[in-house]
């Protein structure tokens, strides 16, 4: 089914709102999918990748299969979003990365005009043995922060598989975020998870990253780097359990607090095998004074220096 002129226009507008981030979505070898509200407005597939999208009342249900052994060379681009000021977008995502497959996804969620938008994502991701699946999600919100973002994922990382995921919300105002990722890891698997969020105004940020290392020699790193200013509130709960011999993990939570903002971090680490090992570090505080002084001694005023430090930390 080829898209209508209206859909092509909407897809174009959606991608334009990504600025430079939308620039890579061209060429026959680049797979992409654009979803506006509850409508798929653009899509292109490449060999080794299957995508089925079903329309729901308030969103879409997307089934993604990376075929066993498929190596998808160029990142797959997803763009979810809504151009109007108000609305609801519910994405149900079901992903299966086949045995020994490789795929990297760059997802952009864009709500440039949001005044009152809710974006929820319910994902289940299964990595078959030996698969590598990378999922990078970047949010681009308007300045007013009228977005409620609720991403929830349940992930199974099979034996020897590698799941790498990043969630980034740095540009525009966060709004309300309720992030919840829960991961089970089999033997010899690798998990890398990082969330980077910059909250301002009256943003409310809640992050929960949880992983269980159930198989031997499974490794995980859970990171959250969060900065809050004005009256924003961030609440981070990271938990990592190592349940098998050789399982190793690290939880790293860094939060920078400015103004009247509030940040909380609760790292929970649990070890259920004498040959497992988990570490955690949590640092919450204002911007490091030596960093600040160094940049000020180069002529940056305090605000510019602070922004540079936070931007760098959030990467």
């Amino acid at each position: 089914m080829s898209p209508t002129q209206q859909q092509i226009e909407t897809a174009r507008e959606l991608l334009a709102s990504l600025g430079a981030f939308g620039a890579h979505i061209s060429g026959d070898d680049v797979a992409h999918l654009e979803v506006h509200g509850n409508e798929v407005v653009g899509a292109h597939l490449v060999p080794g990748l299957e995508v089925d999208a079903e329309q729901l009342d308030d969103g879409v249900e997307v089934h993604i299969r990376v075929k066993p052994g498929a190596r998808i060379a160029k990142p797959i681009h997803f763009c979810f979003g809504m151009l109007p000021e108000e609305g609801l977008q519910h994405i149900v995502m079901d992903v299966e990365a086949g045995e020994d497959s490789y795929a990297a996804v760059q997802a952009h969620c864009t709500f440039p005009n949001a005044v009152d938008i809710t974006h929820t994502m319910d994902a289940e991701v299964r990595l078959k043995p030996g698969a590598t699946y990378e999922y990078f999600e970047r949010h681009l919100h308007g300045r007013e922060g009228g977005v409620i973002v609720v991403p929830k994922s349940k992930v199974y990382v099979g034996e020897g598989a590698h799941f790498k995921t990043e969630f980034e919300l740095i540009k525009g105002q966060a709004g309300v975020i309720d992030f919840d990722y829960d991961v089970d890891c089999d033997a010899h698997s690798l998990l890398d998870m990082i969330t980077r969020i910059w909250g301002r105004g009256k943003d409310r940020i809640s992050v929960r990253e949880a992983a269980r290392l159930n198989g031997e020699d499974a490794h995980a790193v859970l990171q959250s780097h969060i900065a809050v200013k004005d009256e924003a509130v961030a609440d981070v709960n990271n938990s990592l359990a190592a349940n098998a011999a050789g399982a190793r993990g690290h939880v790293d939570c860094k939060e920078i607090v400015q103004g009247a903002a509030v940040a909380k971090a609760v790292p929970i680490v649990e070890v259920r095998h004498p040959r497992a090992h988990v570490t955690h570090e949590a640092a919450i505080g204002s911007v490091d004074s030596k960093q600040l002084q160094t940049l000020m001694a180069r002529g940056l005023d305090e605000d510019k220096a602070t922004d540079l430090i936070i931007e760098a930390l959030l990467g």
Partner: protein
Amino acid sequence: MGVLELKNVSLTLGGKPVLNDVTVDFWEGHVHALIGPNGAGKSTLASVIMGLPGYTDITGDILLDGERINDLPVHERARRGITLAWQEPARFEGLRVDRFVLAGAKDKSTDTARRVLARVGLDPDKYMQRAVDRTLSGGERKRIELASILAMEPRIVLMDEPDSGIDVEALGRMFDVLVDFKERGATVVMITHSEEVLKHAEHAFLMCNGTILDKGPVDRIDGYFAGHCMPCGHTNEPDAGELQGAFE
């Protein structure tokens, strides 16, 4: 008249006088060395000149081109050309070397970043994209800090122990950079415990117990390293009574 002058500067920290009526001037386009034992007040003096938080509550005057700058915040002093290289440079998680180096640069082009990194002996292709974090060695961070100062084209450079923790090659580079600063007419103040660094200065100041004990040509002040410490009542060692108390 010096480009930067301190007149009767005193500072008390934690109830203890740390700078005591310091009067010095630094000459435009000259390299100065500030030496003296641990705890003499050298780093404090640099912090006071830079106006770092905690070091601004002084008596006396700091004059730049004859104008009092006591009340200027750090970044305003930097914009007037004063900068400081820390003994132990800060780490910045995630901050790329090129962004750091160009943060205060006059000319913020990639070419500038490449040029200053090459000048301190770091291959721009290898370092530009790295982060100024714990993955860099201490010596690398010191070189990068020096590169960032070169890019800034400052008028007055305060360097706190520029030789500490760097290898022989980097030390040679540092001396080359001193020549760059001099050629641009910049004024350099190096704090050091090294006789070799001292020899690259034109004027030296000997500090002890918060005061400038002596100043003059390097070859004379150099006598301090030869063991002929100038007469000074101050000692860093505890007195006999204190020692006795410690072992009771």
